[in-house]
């Protein structure tokens, strides 16, 4: 996983609540078996008309936000399906952090495993950043070590993230590797499971 320590980039405002994973990456792009190549399909039905022509009014198509790497959005970002294609599409499009008042649980887990940082700020702070980003693109710095979001003009807000996720992101750790270090604990647990629990070995 790509580590995340500190990132400075242009913020783009997407002022909608409950942005679901069907919008982030529509279903027709989930048939691929690769882990990459989703960035061009991000927010597809919002970015393009049915012929594939970019819709100029959609914020990500506006030239001043093209280079944006921090997305500012409304509450409950990433609700809906468990598709990890959603954070893949965001990250592969170039986003490193999403700032919103709240995130859906599964999306948040998936994002953290892909070096994409979900930053939950108070509704008022998100609102302020949204208004400023709408006026003109500006740069924000998201600092995972300091747990802060800041701008050159003095704006600063602190955020919280669980300590283990922070540790893994800062160091780009592979959590499967960490769990495999506990192989003995898993084996001990398995030895005590009741024999009647369902198993697919016997064909029935």
């Amino acid at each position, binding site marked *: 996983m790509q580590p995340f320590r500190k990132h400075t980039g242009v913020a783009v405002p997407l*002022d*909608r*609540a*409950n942005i*679901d994973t*069907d*919008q982030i990456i*529509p*279903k*027709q792009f*989930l*048939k*691929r*078996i*690769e*882990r990459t190549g989703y960035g061009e399909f991000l927010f597809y*039905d919002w970015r393009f008309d*049915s012929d594939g022509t970019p819709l100029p009014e959609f914020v990500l198509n506006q030239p001043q936000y093209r280079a944006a790497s921090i997305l500012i959005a*409304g*509450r*409950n970002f990433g*609700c*809906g*399906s*468990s*598709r*990890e294609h959603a*954070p893949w599409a965001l990250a592969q499009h170039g986003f490193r952090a999403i700032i919103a008042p*709240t995130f*859906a*649980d*599964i999306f948040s*887990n*998936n994002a953290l*495993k*892909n070096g994409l940082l979900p930053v939950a700020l108070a509704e008022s702070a998100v609102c302020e950043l949204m208004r400023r980003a709408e006026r003109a693109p500006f740069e924000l710095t998201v600092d995972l070590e300091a747990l802060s979001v800041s701008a050159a003009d003095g704006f600063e807000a602190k955020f919280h993230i*669980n*300590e*283990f996720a922070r*540790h893994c992101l800062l160091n780009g750790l592979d*959590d*499967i590797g*960490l*769990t*495999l270090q*506990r192989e003995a*604990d*898993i084996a001990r*647990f*398995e030895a005590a*499971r*009741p*024999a*009647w*629990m*369902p*198993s*697919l*070995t016997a064909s*029935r």
Partner: protein
Amino acid sequence: MDKKPRTLFEKIWDAHVVAQSAAEPSLLYIDLHLVHEVTSPQAFDGLRQAGRRVRRPELTVATIDHNVPTTPDRLVIQDPVAAAQIRALRRNAEEFGITLFDIGSGRQGIVHVIGPELGLTQPGMTIVCGDSHTSTHGAFGALAFGIGTSEVEHVLATQSLQQHKPQTMLVRIEGALPAGVTAKDMALGIIGRIGTDGATGHVVEYAGEAVRSLSMEGRMTLCNMTIEAGARAGLVAPDEATFSYLAGRAYAPQGAAWDAAVARWRTLPTDPGAEFDRIVEIRAEELEPYVTWGTSPAMVVPVTSAVPDPRNAASEAERQGAARALEYMGLVPGTPIDTIPVDRVFIGSCTNSRLEDLRAAARVVNGRKVSARVRAMVVPGSEAIKRSAEAEGLHRVFLAAGFEWREPGCSMCLGMNPDILAPQERCAATSNRNFEGRQGRGGRTHLVSPEMAAAAAIAGHFVDVRSFHLDRPNAASSVNPAQERTLNAAVS
């Protein structure tokens, strides 16, 4: 010494913690891992790249549901990308020694339908799948939740997951459900009250007389929709209904093992005095048949009411969201719900495709005809359900009325297969999400119960199933031309 009273969730959690330390999330053992074609190929690739194996292939089961066409020629998949994804699952199952219930095996179906019907889903278990509607299995008192593909890989490699303990929420529904009000309406009624993020970070336990009175199918519908309130999982305590559903199923314990299992399952229900982080109480009598009007399951009203006016929304953000949803849905505030015409009707999905759902829809349809303006289809949740329904003659009821009777799969719930809406087509659907474009770009989805979907198919518009005369075939089966004009004027 008295032990602290625990909730059902806490008992399952405690029994599955492999290891915990202050610095890390708990490592939770996973009893059953369900796999489908869409969210697994990258996980298997990850294993291959790292030279890892599947730790417990016999606790892993795969099927094909999202991409499979629902026409009789479904073995030949025209879409080359979908076909490649299905081939990848077959290859991965073979390579890693995982049981695959393939198309035509007799056991294929929607992953959340076949787990319970094969008896693989049992009380007290931990169950995961790369699919948010894994919450369905909570109907059996199993802790079941959706995960992403990285976590799928983690479970394949380690049969465990790193998890932070969620909070708990009790949703208690006392009283008796009125006639014509179903488990689907309970779910929509709850989401309408608490919102699509009302249960974020929580595991919900459903309790109360109205929940106890539900069949296992109804409990599955209720738990299935729990994710639409943002919850991690939904749970119903196991009871006699649970045990009698499971007895004799293919992977349920037998003989002495059954007795041992039931004895353990009886210890699972929440102890008196156990505490929840949040409690929501609802009276069953207050629930009605619901129809969603917008692009989120919380945008829902009783069928007896009208499309709401965004100007009455509680906040500016909600007002904007509602106005945008109405524009997408082509609806005008104040339009009575039961005048909104439908073009398509979809009865199916992991929410409402079980035998009981099909029976309920067939009771409404029996002897009537689908409105000339409607294309309607029934998609059984599994090959087993299709066989059972046909043995009862349900398919003849649907076919005689003009419904299409399809092969099992996810079908129009998310349109990853050929079953999709055309732009601006309006659909009464028994599925779980009315998100923009979910059933096809520009498609307009209204979530309802199977009975309400069946009634809409006959009437050609939404109709209160409680006033739909069950004893008078075709009493409301058609819309006259004057009504048709009114209906079309009601929507843009």
